[in-house]
């Protein structure tokens, strides 16, 4: 087993162990932190399909994260009030339904954004994805039906068959399970024919086109898959906080998702998990010490980008063997 694989295993087990220890030690808040790590890691795993594998630097993934959150919020508010939604469909309080709807909605949104944005590349792509996310953000701000600027509360956390989701430990296990599924999916994608094509497109799209594979559909598929996975994380995040607001859609969120990947290590399978863990721990520890924790987060991030480009996993496990 390579050093990276050992590290991956350790990370996965540690994330699982922490809440159990916290439970035993009577520190339920730590379970919430671990849940946050799992959810943010899932969101970044989604983004990593586009960014890490496809080299598509999307600065607008908050749109998908937020849409996932709003799907959870809107479905549950309709289920609570009993009012039908669009086309007379009822709301739902079942997580499984919410996730499917979140994936569908984000997939469609990703398709629309992707079709336009992927016509461009480089800086244009970064700025356009950012601008589309802002568009969704301003829409959520100015559309008062679901809370507008004030956001939308979820009165009772959505349900999962056979599990009491209001217990922190149970909810953590759901999030952890979904995270594992997300990571396995992303590993499968990476090693599939599609994944090989996607990585080839990242390295040299002209050559890929020359051997008869059109880059656009591959990039678009990756972008849509990435949006769908991030949306599931958004739905879980809304359930965790039992609250959705436009801040989930803000460009700071998009930036944070990229930061998670970089802190962990770009192009690593478990990079997002390592990054999310680092980020949440920083936030918690620094936030406990000083109100100005974002100042220090900025310094740490700057140092990572300038001097430690492999992120945490790169520091421990050495360089990536393949480009």
């Amino acid at each position, binding site marked *: 087993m390579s050093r990276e694989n050992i590290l991956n295993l350790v990370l996965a087990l540690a994330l699982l162990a922490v809440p159990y220890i916290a439970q035993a030690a009577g520190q339920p808040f730590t379970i919430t932190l671990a849940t946050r790590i799992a959810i943010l890691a899932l969101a970044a795993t989604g983004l990593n399909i586009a960014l890490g594998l496809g080299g598509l630097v999307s600065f607008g993934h908050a749109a998908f994260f937020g849409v996932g959150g709003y799907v959870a919020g809107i479905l549950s508010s309709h289920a609570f009030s009993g009012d039908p939604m669009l086309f007379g469909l009822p709301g739902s309080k079942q997580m499984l339904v919410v996730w499917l709807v979140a994936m569908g909605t984000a997939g469609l949104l990703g398709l629309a954004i992707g079709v336009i944005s992927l016509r*461009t590349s480089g800086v244009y792509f970064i700025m356009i994805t950012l*601008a589309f996310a802002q*568009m969704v953000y301003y829409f959520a701000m*100015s559309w008062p039906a679901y809370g507008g600027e004030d956001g939308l509360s979820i009165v009772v956390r959505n349900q999962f068959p056979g599990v009491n989701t209001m217990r922190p430990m149970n909810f953590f296990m759901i999030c952890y399970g979904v995270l594992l599924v997300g990571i396995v999916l992303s590993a499968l994608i990476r090693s599939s024919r599609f994944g090989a094509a996607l990585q080839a497109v990242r390295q040299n799209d002209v050559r890929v086109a020359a051997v008869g594979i059109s880059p656009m559909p591959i990039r678009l598929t990756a972008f849509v898959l990435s949006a769908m996975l991030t949306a599931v994380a958004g739905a879980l995040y809304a359930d965790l906080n039992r609250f959705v607001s436009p801040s989930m859609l803000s460009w700071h969120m998009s*930036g944070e998702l990229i930061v998670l990947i970089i802190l962990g290590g770009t192009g690593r399978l478990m990079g997002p998990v390592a990054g999310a863990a680092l980020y949440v721990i920083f936030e918690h520890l620094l936030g406990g010490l000083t109100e100005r924790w974002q100042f220090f987060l*900025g*310094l740490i991030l700057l140092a990572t980008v*300038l001097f430690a480009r492999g992120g945490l996993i790169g520091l421990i496990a050495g360089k990536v063997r393949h480009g």
Partner: protein
Amino acid sequence: MTFALAIEQLLNGVQLGVMLFLMAAGLTLIFGVMGLINLAHGSLYMVGAFACATVAAFTGSFWLGLVASLAASAAAGALIEITVIRRLYARDHLDQVLATFALILIFSEGMRWLFGSFPLYLDIPPLLEGAVALPGGGQYPLYRLAIILAGALVALGLYGLISRTRLGMRIRAGESDREMIAALGVDIRTLYTLVFALGAALAGFAGGMVGALQSVQVGMGEPVLILAFVVIVIGGIGSIKGALIGALLVGVVDTMGRLLLPQVLSLMVPPAQAGLIGGALASMLIYILMAVILAVKPRGLFPAQA
């Protein structure tokens, strides 16, 4: 809707466009010459606004404040160029985005540390108080007209600087072939610092002027930054002309959209709903405009030579 209101809103749109141009010109210049995407440009705008408000409050003179905003933002720009940005020119865009995102966090928290969370206020200078009569019977604030004029002068000055001076020649040479001009003996590092400081000063100038129209607070630069991105994407990254036209287009479309869309919709649906849908649509309008322009011309209206 009266004619006077329409003129007033059109002028507001132009004024917004001028502010956006000052931001976008710096961004596009920095991208064109150094190939760098600078998210922290909005922070320089904020630095300018804070410098103007602080110095104006201390000395009682808006004009000294404006000078301070230029000086402070140019200095902040030169400082981050020398310490951080310089290391990023050879990196890919992802690293640039992240490092400048980190700079935003540092600047925002740093300003909050220095000035506290309460917004500062800046008065319009006595010389520019009052309003001008518009054709059609309306009144328009003199200060906003002065901003439009100042922006036009800066645009002209920038044009002159880039097309008529030695520095401008070097900037253009840097855009087309940076190795070559370094080989010809131009100190490229100093040139880059100068260009970055110039872009920063333009952003700071915009921040200083806008400080008298809105409250000066942490985070004020970010909405403007994103609009400026939309502007340079529409105009074509690297093109100053594109930045000017894109800025005016975005300013006018945004302002007029907010005025007209609810009214147009009210012809079709009940007024209450029209206001709602119109408002939501208007806030998305410039992004829709951008999407349409990019669908037709993926490299913007005036693509700079690659």
